[in-house]
């Protein structure tokens, strides 16, 4: 009866595996043939899928991002041209509004 695996598992911990035991373990604990090919195929499949949706994402980004960027620049140019200044208040549309206006409006609404 085959008892090699028992001896391997139940041997004294500091006893190294013999060559015979090593080949026995390698034979009994292994994957099916062509394991590496299957791993590479899975990787290829995963990256192929990534390659498929990445250009689509880039295209969608360019279709959205570029018009938004152009619109922002035009809007900023119009604001600066109209207000003749380039401050944070002007850009946020809060120029000409004082703290009293804000506080007053709050009290009025209350």
């Amino acid at each position, binding site marked *: 009866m085959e008892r090699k*695996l028992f001896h391997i*598992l139940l041997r*004294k911990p500091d006893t190294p595996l013999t060559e015979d035991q090593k080949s026995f373990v390698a034979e009994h604990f*292994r994957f099916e043939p062509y*394991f*590496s090919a299957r791993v*590479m195929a899975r990787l290829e499949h995963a990256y192929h899928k990534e390659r498929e949706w990445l250009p689509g994402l880039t295209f969608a980004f360019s279709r959205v991002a570029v018009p938004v960027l152009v619109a922002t620049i035009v809007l900023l140019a119009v604001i600066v041209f109209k207000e003749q200044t380039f401050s944070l208040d002007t850009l946020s549309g809060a120029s000409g509004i004082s703290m009293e206006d804000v506080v007053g409006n709050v009290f009025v609404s209350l």
Partner: protein
Amino acid sequence: MSSVTDTELIERARTGDPMAFRHIVEKYEGQIARTVKGMLGEVPEAEDVGQDVFIRFYRSMEHFRGESALGTYLTRIAINLSLNALKQKKRKEMFRFFSNGEKEPVLQIPDNGKSPDQDDTRVMVHQALQLLDKDFRAVLVLRMIEGYSSKETAEILGVPMGTILSRLSRAQKKLKEILENVYGIHAAEPT
């Protein structure tokens, strides 16, 4: 390519050389098979977990600093993924048990009248390993099958060395009891 070091292979794989990565897989698949099959047994999921180990490594290759040997690094991933797979399996079994009262698969115990042949014995050892607590099993697989030292095993599992020594002793004792009591096999004393 056998004379090429792991560092060189990883460098090549990082630059997108598929043959270099394939060589890493071929070099370590045996080691990962021993760890994963030792932890999970002869089940179909073992192959998936084995593949996941290399895919996980491929994705995190940029972060591999070479502080530990590549084999040790991959074994650590294999142990973690195997433990995750065991947790998932347990959850599924619990769910199945509560949803339709299905029982867990019963272990195949040999007919006492017959002497088990080689294949039976192999299956029995795998089953006996599965009866051990997963923490004990991990120590037994790394220490007795993979041949890691207690210090290396402690580093891979992230527990103190004293714990490894105690778990190993208890795991061997338990395995011996299982083989004797469940399978009627009187294993030899540790040699």
